[in-house]
């Protein structure tokens, strides 16, 4: 049974665009994985440095890479919205989709806490400097949430049985 939200979405030009051209969906999937690579790659190396791998790296200097991760996130937000508009019945009511979105939000809350609490201290760390314990916890939680986002993204067709 399709809810009224799904029916409305199906009538939008965006939904038509995603479904009318067979190349749109695989192209968006490809871009979604490339976005993932940029996001997890740049955020991941910063998290690993905070956790103590390659401590000789200066965190303030590494932080410039994060804009590429934000770029990856934007690519994935846009392609993700296209997926949702293309096949709303695959996502609405799908527990894996709700958990994936929850983990994206939790990763966002975590990074907000990072900037509001420990970032100022971490940014001043000299090469070789050990990050405070609180920062390490936040970095580990960041990796956990992003891997969780990948997990529930991959589970979309399996846990929800929607596709």
């Amino acid at each position, binding site marked *: 049974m399709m809810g009224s939200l799904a029916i409305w979405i199906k009538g939008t030009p965006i939904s038509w665009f995603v*479904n*009318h*051209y*067979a*190349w749109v969906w*695989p192209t968006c*999937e*490809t871009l979604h*994985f*490339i976005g*993932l*690579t*940029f*996001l*997890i*790659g*740049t955020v*991941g*190396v910063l998290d*690993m440095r905070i956790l103590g*791998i*390659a*401590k*000789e*790296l*200066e965190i*303030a*200097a*590494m*932080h*410039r*890479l994060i804009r*590429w991760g934000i770029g990856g996130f934007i690519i994935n937000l846009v392609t993700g919205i296209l997926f949702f508009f293309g096949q709303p019945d695959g996502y609405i009511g799908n527990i894996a989709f709700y958990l994936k979105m929850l983990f994206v939000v939790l990763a966002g809350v975590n990074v907000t806490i990072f900037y509001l609490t420990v970032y100022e201290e971490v940014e001043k760390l000299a*090469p070789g400097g050990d990050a405070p314990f609180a920062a390490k916890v936040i970095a580990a939680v960041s990796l956990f949430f992003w*891997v969780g986002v*990948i*997990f529930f*993204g*991959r*589970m979309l067709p*399996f*846990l929800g049985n929607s596709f």
Partner: protein
Amino acid sequence: MMDFLIRVEHSGFSTWVRGSGSVFSYPLILFLHTVGLSMVAGVNTAVDLRILGFAPRVRLAPMEKFYPIMWWGFAINAVTGVILLAASASTIAISGVFWTKMVLILLAVVDLQVIRNRIFRDPLVDKRPVPMNDRLLALLSILLWTGAITAGRLIAYVGAGAAENGITTLFYFKG
């Protein structure tokens, strides 16, 4: 050859991976394949961006410590990739897109080693900007991983691998 591929695909293990319905079979392996991707292609992309000059104040030499992470990612994906191949051997092993992906990954891994030898093992690393020729290795690396990801995604849509999806060509109108 086809007999062999079909035997592999019909083996007990492949059948379990493909059709057991357990979250620990096909879904878990796909998930691990994506985690491996983010470790090898993701971390490599971050290293490439630094080499290209986008975070110039980051010292390069310590970044070599990320190589084991990338190799672990590669190892996870080699193992999970072989399992995914075995599960659908008769279609994927004859897919041109799949072999394109394999060639791109091989080139990306060779490039990663060349980057190690030419850039990280350069006695002048961090004492001068990375020479333009060596920066091209990093650009090539991003292009090769992007290509490998694209080919990997398209296995399910183009050529023999698409047969399972019932898709014959990407460029038809559904409308």
